């Protein structure tokens, strides 16, 4: 499909999509299939890690086009993507680096230091030459993201973008900071909470926040309670 055809399709999808529009969208998505079937399995073998690919659903594409109007469909970077989950920050850095050494990377978005509404991960935007987005997450970051998704089901999709009940948003942000602090403490070898090996102001502040949050665990858990 040409760029013009893709963008005209995007316009129709944003307004009143028909079954024929979805078939055309599927034609566009088919262009990514060789990446899923050949490139990603080869990368998984090279990197020695599990990579789970995800074809962006029509619903997600419709939502994104509507949410980010007037974004053109041809510029949507994550029509196709994959997720890599690793144990620690050190693994995340290593996998990101090894990934970038093997593919043509257009952008690395490090959301660990500057989270998006609490969401922390490293996203690697690649070209094969079609755009493809890798999400590289630690297990803790992934658990936070899954919780956020699950709560968005419960309270509304806008929760992922800072909307929805303010006490839930605040608790999610607090837990994002908590995960960042615990990962920082673990990464720097200062994971012990008894204070014996804490030796920098930053680590002490992180530990204090962690301990304070543990003290508020009941309150936070209530705010982030999953119904059902």
């Amino acid at each position, binding site marked *: 499909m040409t760029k013009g055809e893709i963008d005209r399709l995007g316009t129709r999808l944003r307004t009143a999509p028909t079954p024929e529009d979805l078939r055309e969208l599927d034609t566009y998505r088919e262009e990514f299939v060789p990446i899923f079937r050949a490139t990603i399995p080869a990368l998984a073998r090279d990197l020695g890690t599990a*990579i*789970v690919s*995800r074809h962006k659903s029509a*619903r997600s594409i419709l939502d994104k086009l509507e949410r980010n109007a007037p974004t053109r469909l041809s510029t949507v970077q994550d029509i196709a993507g994959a997720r890599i989950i690793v144990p620690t920050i050190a693994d995340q850095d290593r996998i990101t680096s090894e990934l970038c050494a093997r593919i043509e990377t257009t952008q690395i978005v490090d959301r660990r230091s500057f989270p998006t509404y609490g969401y922390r991960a490293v996203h690697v935007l690649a070209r094969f030459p079609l755009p493809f987005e890798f999400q590289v997450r630690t297990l803790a970051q992934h658990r936070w993201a899954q919780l956020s998704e699950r709560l968005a089901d419960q309270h509304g999709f806008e929760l992922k973008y800072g909307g929805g009940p303010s006490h839930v948003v605040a608790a999610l942000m607090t837990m994002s900071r908590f995960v960042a602090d615990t990962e920082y403490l673990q990464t720097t070898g200062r994971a012990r909470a008894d204070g014996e090996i804490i030796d920098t102001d930053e680590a002490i502040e992180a530990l204090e926040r962690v301990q304070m949050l543990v003290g508020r665990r009941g309150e936070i858990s209530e705010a982030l309670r*999953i119904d059902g």
Partner: protein
Amino acid sequence: MADVLIAYDRRKAQTLVERWFEDATEARRERLALEIASLDQPDLEVVLLEAQTRADVRISHARYFDPLAIGVDRLFPPTLKGSP
């Protein structure tokens, strides 16, 4: 390869369809059919995932497979002082 087609109801937080495929082409065909059939159901998320193993998918997209594994308690490291 493990290809799985999911239809997940966001409002009910419930997976309505979970179908595993040997044939990726068939999986994509079924996805399109399901997307067309659910065009008027904005809360229904139709997702196609591919991985080397089923176990990988269950971890990376636990929300569809194991909702009980998701919760704030999972964010508290078990060794942390103050954790139960």
